[in-house]
């Protein structure tokens, strides 16, 4: 119990931008060897004054193999300052780490030694199944009243997927969040506009549609998700669905404006079956209805078929496969990961319906295999994937692995894991830091989600502008 609020809580995103620089990153490591080695939670030293800057400070192995750790989050965050359910004297000290493959959820305590998280609780898959009816937990967000976790499917790996809650004191699963899901079946990400009591959710596919790898039949048949859903956050009821168009397959990461008075946000669609492009849509509230408009198109890049994996040879082109996006806390710069083409792009989204590209850097890529400036001459594979931006909006950290069975299709030679950093200029330009490249090749596991100590641009939500 604290006397003053946890110092990492900020009433507004504006103020969170003045937070001290991050000293550590937590990174999920995925084992792909399949020889009984567990996944890990790595800590990376981000303190430029430290001799260990840009190196792995430690790795905590999970107790059992086979979890496939995904988008972990904090027990509490700045949303604890919200006026209607205030509890500001709790500590941001636990990481809630979901295993997408195993449906297991781990709780790590990072308070005593932030570089060495301590496992304090494990929620077994059976408990999740029984209490929530869901499986495959994926994304964790700290809410005003509980920890919210998205789950991709039901206990059989079919639809519907949805959201369940964990008590933020005991970490016990509290059951399904939805009181009325309306037509919603597929699920992926969720986040909210706290100022408008609205949740937005997105669609990937059910576990049975994704676990064996991308299914070309489903893709060509436009069966993967392509809709957004708006929900009443208080009543837990479905309000509206927004169809982005079924050619835009897989609507993934949701980045609502951090300012609670604004009513827009951004979502990426991974691939268009018409032209292999990836797209960003802006959703917005107009005359009481939620709408979406395509605002960024990232086209496929022609490439020599000899350089391409089997499913892409016929096209002679590399799809950008945008798989993650991140929005700076001032709602100004949107970072976009094009995992297929190996490019990290930046857009000025001050005018959310008219984004303007401001930066680009390249590492890896299916055909490009671009080197990192820290190790020129060494071809890199994988591409910018999970991207996380520091609270001050000046540094983007990104890793190169997506999801095991999908990694293997697009990078069949096996992804060698790395984590890189790009500095973001005042004008939104990007520059790779040649002095920051964490190479996970020695460990052998692949990095995925990144969380920054104390909070980052996709960890906290705010009730004050």
């Amino acid at each position, binding site marked *: *119990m*604290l*006397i*003053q*609020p946890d*110092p990492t*809580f*900020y*009433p*507004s995103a504006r*103020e969170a931008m003045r937070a001290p620089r991050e000293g550590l990153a937590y990174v999920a490591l995925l084992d792909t060897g399949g020889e009984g080695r567990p996944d890990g939670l790595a800590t990376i030293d981000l303190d430029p004054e430290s001799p260990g800057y840009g190196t792995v400070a430690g790795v905590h192995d999970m107790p059992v193999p086979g979890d496939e750790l995904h988008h972990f989050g904090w027990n509490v965050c700045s949303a604890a*300052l*919200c*006026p*209607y*359910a*205030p*509890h*500001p*004297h709790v500590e941001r000290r636990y990481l809630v780490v979901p295993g997408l493959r195993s449906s297991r959820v781990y709780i790590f305590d990072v308070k005593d030694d932030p570089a060495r998280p301590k496992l304090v609780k494990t929620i077994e898959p059976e408990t999740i199944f029984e209490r929530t009816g869901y499986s495959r937990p994926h994304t964790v967000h700290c809410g*005003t*009243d*509980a920890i919210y976790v998205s789950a991709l499917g039901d206990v059989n790996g079919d639809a519907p997927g949805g959201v369940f809650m964990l008590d933020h*004191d005991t970490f016990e699963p509290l059951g399904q969040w939805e009181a009325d899901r309306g037509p919603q079946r597929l699920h992926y990400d969720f986040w909210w506009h*706290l*100022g*408008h*009591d609205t949740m937005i959710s997105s669609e990937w596919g059910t576990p049975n549609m994704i676990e064996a790898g991308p299914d070309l039949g489903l893709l060509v048949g436009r069966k993967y998700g392509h809709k957004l859903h708006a929900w009443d*956050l*208080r009543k837990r009821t479905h309000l509206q669905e927004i169809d982005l168009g079924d050619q835009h397959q897989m609507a993934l990461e949701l980045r609502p404006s951090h300012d*609670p*008075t604004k009513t827009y946000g951004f979502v990426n669609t991974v691939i268009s079956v018409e032209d292999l492009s990836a797209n960003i849509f802006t959703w917005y509230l107009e005359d009481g209805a939620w709408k979406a408009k395509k605002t960024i198109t990232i086209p496929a890049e022609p490439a020599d078929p000899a350089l391409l994996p089997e499913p892409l040879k016929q096209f002679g082109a590399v799809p950008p496969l945008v798989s993650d996006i991140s929005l700076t806390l001032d709602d100004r710069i949107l970072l976009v990961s094009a995992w297929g083409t190996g490019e990290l792009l930046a857009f000025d989204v001050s005018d959310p319906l008219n984004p303007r590209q401001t930066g680009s850097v390249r590492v890896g890529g299916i055909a490009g295999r671009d080197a990192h400036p820290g190790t020129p001459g060494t071809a890199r594979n994988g591409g910018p994937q999970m991207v996380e931006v520091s609270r001050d909006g000046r540094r983007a950290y990104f890793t190169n692995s997506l999801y095991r069975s999908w990694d293997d299709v697009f990078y069949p030679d096996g992804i060698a894991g790395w984590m890189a950093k790009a500095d973001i200029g005042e004008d939104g330009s990007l520059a790779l830091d040649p002095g920051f490249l964490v190479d996970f090749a020695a460990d052998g596991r692949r990095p995925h989600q990144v969380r920054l100590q104390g909070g980052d641009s996709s960890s906290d939500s705010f*009730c*004050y*502008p």
Partner: protein
Amino acid sequence: MDLTQVLVLAGFGAFHGLNPAMGWLFAVALGLQERSRRAVLAALPPIVLGHAGSVLVTLALVAAVRTSAPPKPVSYAVAALVCGFGVWKLLRRRHPRWVGMRVTGPQLAGWSFLMATAHGAGLMLLPVTLTGHDRAALALSGQTLAFAGVHTLAMLTVTATLAVVVYEKLGVSVLRRAWFNLDLAWAVALIGAGAFAALT
């Protein structure tokens, strides 16, 4: 009602008004969301009414018991209730969770009623109201209204002042430093008030 009672009731009113969880912060948040001071001010009446309602219900229930029960057992029962609630607040630190940012006036009043009740705002005042030997219903009713009125006036003054000063001058960044954890003080105040009822 003597001067001590007025001071204690007003003091508790100020203490409750000071607590961000009792409403002024909600008023500020609604003002910021609408970018209007009018929204801050419009939120205050429902918040204060909800709080006053909770206090009045608590005091009135005990006053009703007093019309037909002997004073000593009532005092001891109140002492046990208030102390017990204080101890419970010490041990169980959960926060009420209801509504969101888009609230109507009645919802805001309901929220405030719930927050005051869950924190035992009325219970804290009970012991100081157990004086006097007049057990006539009419006299007790008048007294109860006066007690709740004094308390509410003090709560309103502090809440309104804080809401306007934070909205206009300080900004919500003040929360990071100045939002002291009042849970312990609150529990101690309850236990102290309960002990007072037992000893007098």
